[in-house]
């Protein structure tokens, strides 16, 4: 074991914690969790070099460190700023941060097509969550949203460039998981797009992980396309002995009945791939796209979705049935007639009067 460096103290939203030196503000905030954690659209802890681009994780540094307690003049990207001993960070307690974050969310949604009703990512989309938490009602943008020419990037992955927020995560996946990157960002500014040059299919054993890291519906699973809504499917943890080197074989199956609709890697509460034995649990395309029978897998049990999202609706363990509130709203009187409808066909059948 190398020599342990002393922990540094950092105060985020008035909560003081000790973290290892070199930790970023975002990761320190994640150890606290809850509202203290800034949202992150482009940072992905398992991808080296990611982050700093989306600017949703901006925080205010009220004091740089014990040694130099001056505040930082600008808001800083918490995902790429390391903590210093005695640093005081303001996230949800800072009006400046709230204002800037509202602005960033507005910028991100400005050219977003908002086609959630037909988007496969809906329900597990980070931009939906972000918009819900930080966005404002209505839009001030009165112009045509930008569009792109459609390109086909292969049989497994569907690219919807209009939904992309240019987080660059998928390029890092291609750089760090696959031997050769064949896609990247073309053009610049608001006409920048993810593309292959010139029209090549992304064909690699690990390309499917691009779908998992995509925070929005820009990269979705073609084999799951328009098959189901994620909140109707039930996630279960499963594994198989995968022979592909680098594949961890531990996945989440998204079932409806006995049918496997989709296979993804297992995700943690930040929507990132879980680590197993210190290694990120990336899965290969064979696991993801070719093994869609429940018999291919050893099912471990239901997945607990720890993310605050609509997909946790699929929970069926530890579910607490909400209490009846009708008596409360009726000032303690019990209703004389209560239709207890279980199916549409029951509506017209005679109800028992209680």
């Amino acid at each position, binding site marked *: 074991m190398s020599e342990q460096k002393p922990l540094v103290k950092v105060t985020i939203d008035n909560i003081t914690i000790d973290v290892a030196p070199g930790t970023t503000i975002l990761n320190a905030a994640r150890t606290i969790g809850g509202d203290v954690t800034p949202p992150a659209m482009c940072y992905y802890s398992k991808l080296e070099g990611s982050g700093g681009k989306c600017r949703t994780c901006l925080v205010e540094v009220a004091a740089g460190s014990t040694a130099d307690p001056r505040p930082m003049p600008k808001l800083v990207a918490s995902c790429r700023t390391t903590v210093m001993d005695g640093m005081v960070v303001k996230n949800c307690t800072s009006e400046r941060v709230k204002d800037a974050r509202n602005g960033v969310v*507005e910028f991100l949604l400005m050219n977003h097509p908002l086609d959630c009703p037909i988007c496969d990512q809906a329900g597990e989309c980070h931009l939906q969550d972000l918009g819900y938490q930080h966005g404002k009602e209505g839009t*001030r943008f009165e*112009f045509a949203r930008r569009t792109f020419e459609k390109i086909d990037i292969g049989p497994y992955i569907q690219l919807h460039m209009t939904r992309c927020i240019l987080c660059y995560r998928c390029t890092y996946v291609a750089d760090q998981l696959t031997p050769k990157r064949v896609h990247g960002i073309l053009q610049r*500014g*608001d006409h920048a797009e993810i593309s292959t040059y010139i029209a090549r299919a992304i064909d690699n054993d690990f390309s499917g992980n691009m779908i998992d890291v995509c925070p929005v519906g820009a990269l979705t699973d073609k084999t799951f396309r328009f098959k189901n809504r994620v909140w109707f499917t039930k996630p279960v943890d499963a594994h198989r002995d995968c022979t592909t080197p680098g594949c961890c074989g531990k996945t989440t199956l998204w079932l409806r009945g006995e049918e496997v609709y989709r296979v993804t890697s297992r995700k943690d509460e930040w929507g990132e791939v879980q680590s197993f034995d210190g290694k990120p649990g990336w899965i290969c395309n064979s696991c993801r796209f070719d093994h869609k029978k429940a018999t291919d897998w050893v099912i471990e049990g239901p997945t607990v979705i720890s993310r605050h999202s609509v997909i946790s609706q699929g929970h069926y363990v530890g579910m607490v049935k909400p209490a009846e509130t009708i008596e409360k709203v009726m000032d303690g009187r019990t209703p004389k007639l209560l239709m207890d409808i279980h199916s549409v066909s029951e509506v017209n059948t005679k109800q028992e009067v209680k």
Partner: protein
Amino acid sequence: MAKKLLLANAHVPGIRGYEVYRREGGYRSVEKALKTMTPEAIVEEVKKSGLRGRGGAGFPAGLKWSFIAKPEGVPRHLVCNADESEPGTFKDRYLMEFLPHLLVEGLIVSSFALGSNTTYIYIRGEYAWIVDILETAITEAKANGWLGKNILGSGFDCEIYVQRGAGAYICGEETALIESLEGKRGNPRIKPPFPAVKGLWGRPTVVNNVETLAAVVPIINDGGESYAQIGIGKSTGTKLLSACGNINKPGVYEIDMTISVEEFIYSDEYCGGIANGKRLKACIPGGSSVPILPANLLLKTAKGEPRLMNYESLADGGFATGSMMGSGGFEVLDEDQCIVRHTLSLARFYHHESCGQCSPCREGTGWMKKILHNIEYGKGKMSDIDLLWDIQRKIEGNTICPLGDAAAWPVAAAIRHFRDEFEWHVLNPEESQQRNFGLAHYADPSAMHVPVS
């Protein structure tokens, strides 16, 4: 007649060639530096001179040099930023085109000071013909023993390479320049680490503007202290200004930062007054990114003192009533020019040049352009002006690199100082289409102008 340090010999016939340049006293500083000075002494001399970065930010060059990390066994690099793409700025072009050896000389001395054995000139792609001029100068310098192995027997090796950019404004940002030089997409890096620690290929790197490096030559020749005596306060030495717009004599001028803005515009030595007998309406004193100022605030500060052409005086009053020295692109607008149209053309530029890496700049610049386009073409609403203000406020300071700020400031300043012209455009859509001159009253020698918000 102000003292000229950089352009003193610019009009000597054949100065572009080595023979004439050497005859006029060229390469003296290399002899002096390599034979009699240590690298530390040169850095010290530059610190003493008070030379400030001429690329726009005005950061003290000597201080920047002293930040460079010096780990054992790791090469260091000096990169010359010749990616001069700021609209209205063309001083480096002039310098490189007519005095290429001055830059080469400055580069050799600076490379020696920083310990850079491989030095790069990253030149804007559009300056294609200057690449040939520079490469000829480098070949000549090498043939005469100023470059290569063991220069002047000092044991110092140095090579200079010229690399052309591919036409992106963003590559003038130092980390984007480094990325581009490495052969990657020119996206600015997230700082820290700063280039002085991890720059080109992960090695300590200093990136300096052409003019800054050229100014090292007179500093070494005459000593840092005598350089510091020119100018006022922290604005030492001479500065190249590229004047353009509605003036009688556009061009590159070398000033010693003691003259007033009024003198610079109206004297025959410099701009020679406003063209066609018109009146001055507004001016961008330091390249398109810096805030625009109306005539009365340009000539006098908010305190009523005459404004001088130097870093401090131009910035006097902050952004509320001042501007910045910037890169020295002096753009003058006469009374017939429309501020809305001018702001639109700047917004269009920044929209086109945003790299698209971080969201506020990527989306915000396009949005501002579209709104300004509407106002300019008679389709604007009153609420658009406040919306523009809000957008620029949300871009400024929230981006990775200064391009976001550079895009936000011109819009902010235009609204701050010329709000009624925007309102006039909204209220008089038809007239503004027929007679797109905006409002001329800013040229009136009125009482002190009070900026809006």
